[in-house]
Every structure is written in structure tokens, then in C-alpha cells.
């Protein structure tokens, strides 16, 4: 079956196509060349419409223990957003911690075709995959989380050579079926178990004597040397702490040129100036990002309203628990592996701090020059639910809308920002970079995020509309692997995406100390820890897509 999409305006930054009118041909789930005989089975007239690859959310908490704790904890949040079943779709719930099924449907309805869970605890990876397996339509993948796991810290305390650490990282990525590596409050989650309440970049874990800086260095080196395309995904120290911008600047400096992705940078860009001892560090952070080409960031924009924060960073989540709204929260220590904290939160536009957070996020978006190195996220659901992306896109693309919003916020916060003077408006092309081409490149998805021949036919088609929120809320068509899954913003077919993974090679000798470690200290056997490929295929709906490693990987 050959499908022709005729006459659309293509925004395909991977091929430098900025608003180029071109036909697209799709066969067997892939984008193909025009047939030599010109014969097509189906043609859709998309003249005048905006065509982009399916959008990719490179940081969204859609599966795994902490998200599911959030779901179970918040019946009151679901009750206002229950979703009825239809002939085609399962029932579920939306808003802050939506059900997996609803998550898949909603993403697809907004033209997203992939989402990546950024905090997969290795010990909890099986659950993360189960949940992602139940997330329809979109592709998914996870970043395995290390850095507070005792095995790594033991290796580091024992001064293990980098080769061994690379092996361990590769082993973890392989057996948790991950596509990248994440570190959360490096070593801090572990330190919290020893009753340390903060851990700055150069502060030592009282038991291991290891610092966050050491951990970042070791892990980013491992990722680079293994050739894993996605740079180390870093949720830095001191999340949410006023003055943490210095730690962040220090972290950028300390990356020493190694690729590093700093996630939800907004939460790490705070100064201590002003009467409230809380100020924007966005300008300095953006300047550092602009200067250091090895650094990529996603923003973690906050938007006002009720949401829930879910993080592996239980040290910081515990510190934030007095702000829980409603007043309930969970913190867990997990399996000598990591931890998690789930704290519901309501961002209020009349709160100085929240209003400034909103501004800091937008300042960062507008002051980082290179759209290939900054990504559109709300750190769903931490800053806001992902369903607010069209609104966020409008804030980026429409200065007057942005300034109208700004003028309604806490007055003192308005005085503390120069956001109103930032004239930049993102173009459609830049949005396509940020949410498609750049994201695919960052995650390491060879065949996604672009519309070149051979790419998977994940295609989103919009009617151009000056109101970008309306435009990005409701695409005309969304194709997933060549199948029409959404029409006029509604799901018309349910498919099940693939799971993207990397499989870096490792030396099997790493299993010797691991086996001993599991047997001696763990309550689970090493063999049962590993997630098999069959588990990803599961009941037959799932599939595994192994993404290529970057050339130059050491092993």
C-alpha cells in the first residue's frame, strides 16, 4: 500500500527543509521515494498544511514506580478528569498523573509519536516497561538511573578503573532495556540514606567519600566511551534550592567538554538576589549553555495549576514535602539502588516563587541560541502535565500572548525578570528542531524525528493557525509507522509503538562481582534482575528497536 501526502509544507530540520512544499510517500511504515510509475494507492491532499515528523518528548515521566504511586495517591485528581471509554479507546483518567492508556492517546492526539521515561530505576525497570507497554501508539524508551546505587559507589570508593565502570554501565543499559543513562542528584539519594540532607557538587558522601562531581565524571565518561548516543542525562544537585545556579554553572564547567544533558534546567537556575532571596539565574545559565557546545538542556517549564512532582530525588523531595498540596506525599528508599519522592504541588500565579519559576523557564528558552541544544519539556508532570505543551508552544511563538500572561503574574516577580524585553519568537522550524529533529538526535533515534527517505513514517500534519495553541492541540492527521492513528485531533486507530534501546557491548567479567554483590546483599537474584527481550515483546504487542551506537565507542 503506497500512500501519498500531496503538497504539504515540510518542516524537516534534519534535512534543512524549512517550509518546503514537497510530496511524501509512505509504504510499509516507512517514508519512501516517489514511485517510478507514479502509481499510488491512496492520496491525501495536504496542500497548505504544515508537515512535521511526529514529535518526541525526550523527558516525560510516563511509567514506573513513582508515577504509579502518584496515580494511586491522587484519586481526587483523577476524579475531575476521568475519561470515558469509546468503541475504540479504553477508559482511564487524565490530568496530572494520567493512566497509561490515556497518556498514549493524548500524546498521539497532540501529534507526539514518542516519549521517553527519564528515571528508570534499574531495580524498577521491569515495571517501567510494563507501564510503557500499556501506553498505546507512541514509541517509548527509558533512561536507566545510576549514581546513587551502592554497586557504583562501591566501585568508585574502591577506585575501580573506568573500564570496569563502563562495563557496569553497559550491563545496566542492556539488562534494563534502556536507551540512555540518567543520574539524579548524583550520590545524593544514597547520602540521604545516611541521613545527609544536602550534597553539593564537591561534598562527600559520608560513607563512600565520593562526590557528585566524581560520579558525573565517571558516568559521562562511560556513556561517551560506550558510544551511547544520548549523553549522560543529568538531574543535578540541589534541585529547587535558591542559589543552585552556581552549582549548575560549576557542573557545566566540570563536564570538561564531555557531552552532558542537563535536564529540567529551570529547577537548577535559581539565584539568591532580591527581597525574597530568590532570583533568576537564567541569563548566566543560558550564557554558559551557549558557550559550552557539549551541553544540551531541556527546560522543565512550570505552568500554573495543580500537578504532582515525581522524582528519584528523595533527598530534595523530602525537603520539599512541607509544600505538598494537597498535604500528602511519599518518599521511598529503594533497594540500595535509588529512591523516589512523590509530592503533589500547586503552582500559583500569585506566588512570587512560582511566578518567577515560570519566567525563568521562558527566559531560558528565549536566551539559549541553538534550538538543537534545548528541548521543550515540562518535566511532565513535575512542572505541568504534558497536555499543556500546545500552550507552552504558544508562549514561545507568540510574544504578545506571553507578555499578556506575564502581566497577570505576581507583581514583584514581574519586576524581577526582563522577560518582557525578550523579543524572540520561536519559528515553526525551530519548534520542529526542538520537538523533532533535535530530540531524535539527542536520544539517538536514527530513523525518527525526520522525514527523509527510510525514516519511520511518524508524521504529523497541522493546519497552519496563527493561534499556535489551537494548531498544536489538534493536528489534522497523525501517522504512526505509516498508519493513520489520529484524524482531526482524535484517535482513529490504536497501535502499539516500539521500545527503543541501546545494546552497548560489555565484558562478561563484570557479572562476577555483580553476582557476588547480588547474592551477598540483595534480595533478588541477578538472573531475575535482568529483563529479557521477550519481556519487552510481552503479549506480542511490544517490540524492541535497537538503536545504533555512536561511532567511536570504545568497546
Amino acid at each position, binding site marked *: 500500500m503506497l500512500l501519498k501526502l500531496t503538497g504539504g509544507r515540510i518542516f524537516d530540520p534534519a534535512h534543512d527543509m524549512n517550509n518546503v512544499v514537497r510530496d511524501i510517500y509512505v509504504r510499509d511504515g516507512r517514508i519512501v521515494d516517489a514511485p517510478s510509475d507514479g502509481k499510488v494507492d491512496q492520496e491525501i491532499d495536504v496542500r497548505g498544511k504544515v508537515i512535521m515528523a511526529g514529535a518526541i518528548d525526550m523527558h516525560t515521566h510516563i511509567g514506573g514506580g513513582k508515577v504509579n504511586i502518584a496515580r494511586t*495517591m491522587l*484519586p*481526587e485528581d483523577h*476524579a475531575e478528569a476521568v475519561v470515558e471509554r469509546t468503541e475504540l479507546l479504553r477508559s482511564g483518567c487524565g490530568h496530572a498523573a494520567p493512566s497509561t492508556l490515556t497518556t498514549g492517546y493524548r500524546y498521539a492526539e497532540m501529534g507526539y509519536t514518542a516519549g521517553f521515561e527519564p528515571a528508570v530505576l534499574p531495580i524498577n525497570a521491569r515495571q517501567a516497561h510494563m507501564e510503557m507497554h500499556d501506553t498505546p501508539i507512541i514509541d517509548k524508551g527509558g533512561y536507566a538511573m545510576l549514581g546513587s546505587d551502592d554497586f557504583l559507589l562501591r566501585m568508585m570508593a574502591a577506585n575501580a578503573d573506568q573500564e570496569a565502570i563502563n562495563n557496569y554501565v553497559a550491563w545496566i543499559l542492556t539488562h534494563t532495556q534502556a536507551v540512555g543513562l540518567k543520574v539524579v542528584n548524583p550520590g545524593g539519594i544514597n547520602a540521604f540514606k545516611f541521613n545527609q540532607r544536602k550534597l553539593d557538587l564537591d561534598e562527600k558522601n559520608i560513607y563512600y567519600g565520593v562526590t557528585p562531581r566524581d560520579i558525573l565524571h565517571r558516568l559521562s565518561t562511560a556513556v561517551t566511551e560506550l558510544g551511547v548516543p544520548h549523553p549522560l542525562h543529568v538531574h543535578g544537585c540541589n534541585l529547587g534550592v535558591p542559589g543552585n545556579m552556581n552549582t549548575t554553572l560549576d557542573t557545566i564547567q566540570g563536564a570538561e567538554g564531555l557531552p552532558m544533558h542537563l535536564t529540567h534546567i529551570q529547577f537548577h537556575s535559581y539565584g539568591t538576589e532580591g527581597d525574597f532571596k530568590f532570583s533568576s539565574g537564567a541569563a548566566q545559565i543560558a550564557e554558559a549553555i551557549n558557550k559550552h557546545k557539549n551541553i544540551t538542556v531541556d527546560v522543565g517549564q512550570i505552568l500554573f495549576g495543580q500537578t504532582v512532582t515525581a522524582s528519584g530525588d528523595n533527598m530534595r523531595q523530602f525537603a520539599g514535602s512541607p509544600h505538598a498540596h494537597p*498535604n500528602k506525599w511519599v518518599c521511598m528508599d529503594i533497594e540500595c539502588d535509588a529512591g523516589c519522592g512523590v509530592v503533589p504541588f500547586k503552582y500559583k500565579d500569585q506566588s512570587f516563587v512560582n511566578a518567577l519559576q515560570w519566567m525563568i523557564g521562558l527566559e531560558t528558552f528565549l536566551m539559549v541560541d541553538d534550538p538543537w541544544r534545548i528541548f521543550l519539556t515540562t518535566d511532565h508532570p513535575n512542572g505541568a502535565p504534558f497536555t499543556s505543551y500546545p500552550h507552552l508552544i504558544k508562549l514561545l511563538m507568540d510574544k504578545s500572548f506571553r507578555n499578556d500572561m506575564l502581566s497577570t503574574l505576581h507583581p514583584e516577580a514581574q519586576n524581577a525578570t526582563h522577560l518582557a524585553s525578550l523579543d524572540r519568537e520561536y519559528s515553526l522550524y525551530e519548534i520542529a528542531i526542538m520537538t523533532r529533529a533535535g530530540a531524535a538526535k539527542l536520544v539517538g533515534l536514527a530513523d525518527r524525528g525526520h522525514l527523509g527517505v527510510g525514516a519511520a513514517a511518524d508524521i504529523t500534519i497541522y493546519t497552519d493557525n496563527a493561534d499556535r495553541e489551537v494548531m498544536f492541540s489538534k493536528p489534522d492527521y497523525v501517522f504512526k509507522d505509516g498508519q493513520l492513528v489520529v484524524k482531526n485531533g482524535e484517535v482513529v486507530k490504536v497501535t502499539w509503538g516500539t521500545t527503543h534501546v541501546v545494546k552497548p557491548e560489555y565484558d562478561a567479567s563484570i557479572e562476577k562481582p555483580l553476582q557476588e554483590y547480588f547474592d551477598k546483599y540483595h534480595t533478588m537474584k541477578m538472573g531475575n534482575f535482568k529483563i529479557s527481550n521477550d519481556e519487552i515483546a510481552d503479549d506480542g504487542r511490544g517490540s524492541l528497536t535497537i538503536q545504533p551506537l555512536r561511532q567511536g565507542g570504545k568497546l
Partner: protein
Amino acid sequence: MSALTFKLIFERAQRVDCSPLTKDKLEGKTVAEIAALPLVAGRQPVTAGDVFEISGDDCRHIVFENSSDKLDFIGHGMSDGEITIHGAAGAYLGQFMTGGQITVNGSSDIYTGCEMKGGQIKINGNAGDFVGAARPGYKNGMTGGTIIISGNTGARTGDHMRRGMILIEGDAGDYCGSRMVSGTIAVLGGVGRHLGYAMKRGTLLLNQAPAQGISANFNDCGSHTLAFLPLLFAEFAKLDSGFAKVSPFSRVQRYAGDIGGIGMGEILVRL
């Protein structure tokens, strides 16, 4: 004008959601229109006319006849008017109501007056568990209004209650006043175990000392004459309740707790 009357045609197996049957939602509708309204009763679609024989035309006074404890959500969110129920009422009677009056000539099931904000519920019978409480996950139980129960209540009366009054002429079940945030629960009869468990603030006013005594998670603050009690009794005197007939007292033994929590709640026992 005669009361708009819903006579249950036969006792149904499944629970019926009666939330559409309030003055706020029925005003201006004819009996035929009302009969055609869809109701949820189990998974099969039914209409109000399938469930009830409907008569009358004054939706300011709604009457349920032949009522059963499977008729849930009666008076849901009502803002004014009057509902009289002959027979039992189901769960969530008067949930979210902000005004008006509900009278049950029979007993009510769990969550009577769940998260109600105003108005009055009078049960001429017994009420189930969680009178005036909050649904799981929600933080505030009733935040206003008065619930009067001529008989007994089940467990967890006033769980998470924030404001308003619950008056129990009979006995209160276990965990009366649990997790109470504020408000007043008064009991003429006996009380069950774990009185005021995890209560934060609020008043449990007892006409008689609990048979099992006061538990160790409350501290005795001594005997006192409290100036607010006469005001409270003056308020009781206005009600259609056994409480109107109690001779007012202001001399009480005061216990504070639950000391495991913030400990600002009080049990006042008549002396």
C-alpha cells in the same frame, strides 16, 4: 402545586444514582421530561421513569416514596428546596449540598452528608459509616451545615470533618470524630471505641461519659464551665431534634487530643 414525588417502582438489585433528581436540575421540567432522564443503575441504561413512578409538580419539595438503601446520591449538590425520603436512603445522601433540607424517614447508608457545605440533613433513623466525611483522597469532609441523626451512626462519624455540626441522638459508632479538622459532633447516647482518633481540632460533646472511659491518647484538662456551651445549646433549641429538649449544661470535663497528632481536639463530657 404538589410535591414532586418519585415512587420507587420495585426494589432494584443495582444501586441507582439519584443525583440528577434535585430541584437545581429539575426546575422547569415536566414530569414526562423527568421520566425520560437517564439514570445510572448498574451497567444497563435506565430512565427515571423506569425506576420511579413520578407525580407532582413542585420540585421545591421532592419526595421519595418506597425508598431503599440502594438509592444513592439523593440531594447531590442541592442548593435549596426540600427533599423528604420515606424509607431508607442509600450512600452519599446530600453529598456536596450547599443548602436546603433533607429529611429521611428511615435510615441512611454510608457517607451521609459527604463533603456537604450547608443546609440540613435529618435522619429519623440510623446512619451508616462516614457521616459528614470526605471521600478517600480528599482532605475536607463536611464544611458546613447540620446533620441530625435521631438514631445511631456507624463508624468514622465526622472523619475529616472541617466545619458544621453532627448531632447524634442515639449512639455513635467506633472512631467517632476520627481525623476531625474542626467542627462539632455532639452525642446524647453512647460512643464506640477510639473516640476522636487522630482528631486534630474540633469538639466532641458527650452527654454521658463513654462506658469504656477516655483512652490514653487524650489528656485530661480538668473540669470547667465553658462559656460557648450556652450558645451551642441555644442553637440546638432551634432544631427539630432531641437536642432541643436536653437541658443545657456548660459544666464539662475537658480532654485534649489526639496527642499523637497536634492534639488540639477536645472531648467534653457533661458533668
